[in-house]
């Protein structure tokens, strides 16, 4: 379970977050929806311990990220904004390295790697160095790296950004699978139909504030619009005027 409350964050002269609060429950997929620059990545970076909030807190399974960073990070699997890989390491070596950073024993690590390679269809690329991987192949390695330690909470920052149809479908399948396993999945996106199809809960963020939160139907209702995309636009514009 992931909770953030009253997050405020400023960079130099820009106020990125003006008090963001939301939560994501276990066995549910929560979508963080918002236009570019709304504060999605900043919120997530605070959540996984990369940035410190000016005020407010972020908790993972009740552990405050600022106070108990290492314990909180251990319970979290992250697909961050940066998709950088080590070009000279193979896909399997990536999993091994990040698994070891989480303190996983070698035999568990091997089992889990094989499982993820099957799950993500990586059989042909598992033992190749990642140099020259396609966007989709890179994304698979990033996902495997995020899931290697079987975390209870998953945060995905724009997981389908720049992917082809096949890989996008694969990622969506994976998100559904993770929900069925009872995990807490939080992902950010600016693609409306993706969010409406996948999510149990939606959090709409605009101008550094949460403008709506709830099940998709409730959000449509609060904006007075049939279509989720229209609802999103109206809510975002309402926030911009404030």
């Amino acid at each position, binding site marked *: 379970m992931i909770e953030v409350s009253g997050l405020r964050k400023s960079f130099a002269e820009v106020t990125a977050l003006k008090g963001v609060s939301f939560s994501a429950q276990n066995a549910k997929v929560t979508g963080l929806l918002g236009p570019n620059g709304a504060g999605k990545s900043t919120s997530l970076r605070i959540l996984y311990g*990369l940035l410190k909030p000016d005020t407010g807190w972020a908790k993972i399974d009740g552990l405050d990220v600022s106070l108990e960073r290492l314990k909180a990070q251990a319970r979290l699997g992250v697909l961050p904004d940066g998709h*950088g890989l080590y070009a000279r390491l193979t896909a399997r070596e990536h999993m091994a390295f990040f698994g070891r950073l989480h303190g996983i024993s070698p035999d568990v690590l091997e089992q889990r790697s094989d499982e993820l390679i099957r799950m993500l269809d990586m059989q042909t690329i598992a033992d190749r160095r990642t140099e020259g991987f396609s966007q989709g192949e890179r994304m698979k390695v990033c996902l495997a790296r995020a899931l290697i330690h079987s975390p209870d909470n998953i945060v995905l920052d724009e997981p389908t950004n720049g992917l082809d149809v096949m890989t996008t479908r694969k990622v969506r399948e994976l998100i559904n699978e993770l929900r069925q396993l009872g995990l807490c999945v939080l992902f950010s996106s600016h693609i409306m139909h993706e969010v409406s199809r996948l999510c149990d809960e939606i959090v709409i963020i605009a101008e550094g504030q949460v403008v709506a939160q709830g099940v998709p139907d409730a959000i449509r209702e609060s904006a007075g619009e049939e279509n989720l995309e229209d609802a999103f636009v109206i809510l975002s514009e309402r926030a911009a005027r404030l």
Partner: protein
Amino acid sequence: MNLLRALYQKEMIDGLRDRRSLFSSFFFPFLAPLFIYGLMTLMIEQNTKKETIELPVIGGEYAPALIQHLLENGIEVTAFSDDPEQAIRDKSVDLVLEIPADYQASMAAFELTRVGMIHDGSRNDTRATVSRVRQLIRSYSSELNALRLISRGISPRLIQGVQPKNEDIASEEQRAANILSYIPIYVLMAAFVCGLGLAIDTTAGERERRSLEPLLINPVPRLKLIFGKWLAASTLSAVGMVITLILCLWTMLALPLDELGFRFSLAKSQIPLLVLAILPVPLLACSLQLLLGLFAKSFKDAQSYIGILVILPVVPGLVLQFYPVTTSLWMYLVPILGQSLMIKELLGAEPVAFAAYFLSFASTVATSLGICLIAARLLDQERVIQG
């Protein structure tokens, strides 16, 4: 401990697979001894060349006794009749001796007799020849003076005055060590060159390829991340440095240094002492490189900062060469300076105090750890991720 091993192993694998950067880093250890060999061979050749000075003389027939004196001292005198200034400008001759036609008359009248030495004072390569000939003319003159005094019944000892007496107390090894003072420069430079590729790649490179963020979201203390990178870079740096040391020593042993009047001997027991003395240098070099790599805005930025760092080991070497200070114990506390001194002393077969090993080791390692702590703090700052 497991965590640190995982970090170290990953950096090592990554670093060793980076063939291109590895080759360019390890070019240095093999280049340095080659350079020494070339330089020293040239020096030996110049110094041992049997000096048959050829001296073109104008009007040699006017001063047969002087010419005889020159011949007796191994100068090959040849008659010369061209324009001396032009010939020197053309570099066809180094020096021309011109004896005036009134030489005999002037000598007979006991007047001051001048012989012309025409040369180009801006040429370094003829300086030795000029001073040799000048010295021979002076010695001829003083012999002549003595004879003149004797013929008048005066002892030549009356005009002897003061003369310097040469007493060089440096042992042959010490004189050699002075010549060898660039070995510490090369060896310490190798420490700064060989780990450089990995140090940049794992800091500025890590950020530029956007793999720093995925790394930092793992439950790993920042200091451990730095330690993993630091130890991996230091390993490469230390290997390169020891290779440079061994190859430089081997080169020195292979050279016929005794022909220069130096003796360079190396007991087997000295090598471990040398290695022990310089071992903390890679730790210092790599900690500085990591810090600069994290501090730099981009990969290119990091390369230029860290490139400047390579000059660092040259500084104490140069200072010691041109400003020879008496060694005192505090100097061993200064990283790089302490190690430069110890290499010089060990190569010169001078005793090195135990305190020197301890002080230089402790202070250099402590400085490196301090720099690592700063680097870990830097890694905790948001600036590092934001770029």
